[in-house]
């Protein structure tokens, strides 16, 4: 009896190993497509031109042209530098608010006013940071066309150039009835800026990928409060810096990354 048991134990691997090997082969078929990366980025340089636009506009609107240079230290980690120039402007809503406010005679009401927050327009920025891409996957767009993708988070900081035109501080009234001003108070500044992004890239070849990202630019806001409109319209200096928070510019960025 003991001899049979020993024989059975000896023969058991002979029956189980082929089965296990077969299962392992199925396992390979099931998983290898994702676990073996078709597109390796580690140790490679990439350059990405991109265009961006705002998802929700309030007082300002921005369109950005950006260039991103990144070195992929690992498949999942990259050091990146980013430079952007922006075409920015006040929205129609902002211009309408300013016009309607100016039509109100300060002598008849709202003699002192605070400027509105989030009125700064970004003209350009330079950022440096890190990109972390822990997710690599593949999706089947058509039966014979699997597309490999990578999702990433990006964070960085740098400096930006900004411009602001007040909505309540008019230094030269042209027409009260029409609400037109000949010289709105404008300001320019260079200040620190931080940025975070959540994105996804779809690989088109070993040399390129299409990138989509939602990017938030954050920078300190500032504006004047307690503005004496009568003094302002007479060309005098008035107002004091108010307590302002942070301005967020949330943009959708679309670009193509060239990998070398």
């Amino acid at each position, binding site marked *: 009896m003991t001899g049979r048991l020993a024989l059975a134990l000896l023969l058991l691997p002979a029956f189980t190993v082929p089965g296990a090997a077969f299962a392992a*082969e199925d396992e390979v*078929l099931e998983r290898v497509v*994702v676990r073996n*990366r078709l597109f390796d980025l580690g140790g490679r340089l990439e350059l990405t031109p991109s265009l961006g636009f705002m998802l*929700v506009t*309030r007082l300002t609107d921005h369109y950005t042209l950006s260039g991103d240079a990144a070195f992929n230290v690992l498949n999942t980690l990259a050091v990146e530098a980013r430079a952007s120039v922006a075409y920015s402007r006040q929205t129609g809503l902002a211009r309408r608010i300013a016009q309607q406010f100016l039509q109100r005679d300060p002598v008849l009401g709202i003699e002192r006013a605070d400027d*509105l927050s989030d009125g700064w327009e970004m003209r350009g920025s330079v950022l440096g940071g890190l990109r972390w891409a822990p997710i*690599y996957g593949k999706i*089947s767009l058509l039966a014979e066309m699997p597309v490999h993708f990578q999702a990433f988070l990006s964070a960085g900081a740098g400096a930006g150039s900004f411009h602001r035109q007040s909505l309540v501080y008019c230094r030269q009234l042209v027409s009260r009835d029409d609400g037109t001003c000949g010289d709105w108070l404008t300001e320019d500044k260079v200040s620190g800026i931080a940025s975070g992004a959540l994105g996804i890239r779809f690989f088109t070849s070993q040399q390129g990928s299409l990138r989509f990202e939602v990017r938030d630019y954050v920078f300190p806001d500032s504006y004047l409060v307690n503005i004496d409109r009568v003094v302002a319209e007479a060309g005098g200096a008035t107002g004091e810096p108010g307590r302002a928070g942070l301005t967020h510019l949330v943009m959708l960025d679309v670009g193509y990354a060239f990998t070398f």
Partner: protein
Amino acid sequence: MRWVLLAALAALTEAEGNEAAAPEAAAPEASPIPEDAEVVALREPTPEELAAQERAQRLVSGAPLYNPNVAVHIVQRKAFADGGKREVVLYPAVPQANGKFTQHFGTAASLVYHLHENFGLQVTPQYNWYSSDSSFNQELVDKVRQEGLAASTLLLNWGVQGGVEVTPLYGKFAFFDSTLAQFQVVLTGGAGLGSTRHLLRPAAQGKPASFGDTGNKFLGSVGGGFRVQLGDRFALRLEVRDLVYTARVDHVNGCSASELRQMRDVFDRLTREQLDAPDAISSQVAVGSACRVERFEGLDSERNESRAYDIRQALSLVEEPSSDVLNNVSVYAGFSVLF
């Protein structure tokens, strides 16, 4: 006569047989093997060729994967099947993503019946437990005495919409090359009904805001997102949905502009003490049954003042009727159970 026919038939058959036999007899003479022809011998396959043949016949998951003469298109088995299943989804947090003049936070649930693997029917009720004007709109009111048009600042209390859900794309991803997850791209579309309201007086000095009911509106919905499968029965969902509704403000609490004007006239005549009476307004106006005058009279215990103070603000909303098409884009993050 019969014998004549049989004889003729027999003669014809014999002649055909001779014609058919003639080539066979002549064949060896037509292609003789030359005497100096090279001699060939049948060769036994080598062990390597035998192994290759055996390998070519081998089936992997039922497919001749190693057969060079067969093109095998591997369609990977979907790890989890949805067809015929039901799915209950809870979205605990549904924040509005595009709030300009309004801001909504809500909770939604969804019941999906997957008719087929990639197609299902869904119904989604949603309740916004916070719906008020945005901080941007409040800033406009505070600093420049302006605000968004009534129709643009309409708030969505709740909504129910039903429609279809399509999952055309299927994929998988690895997190740090170690954890494998299956996901689907989810597209939804539907139509339904939503209840709307409008801010009448904002919260101030510790008093809560007051709102006026602006009626039920038709809702349309489109959306898209991802569903990440967790085992056989659970999934995580992240979607963005756009609730589209036409907003026209011409009634507040069911009362039209002319009915609100009557109420305003009464309001102007009464003293503060008289306004606190429960029927201060309704006893002096003649309005239609749809107009809920009780919403504009009596003491509001939370604000500790008469509800009649809302009449002027309500009238200002409907005196110049405004209309807009609102897009309430929200992020739906939730989890689901399949059964």
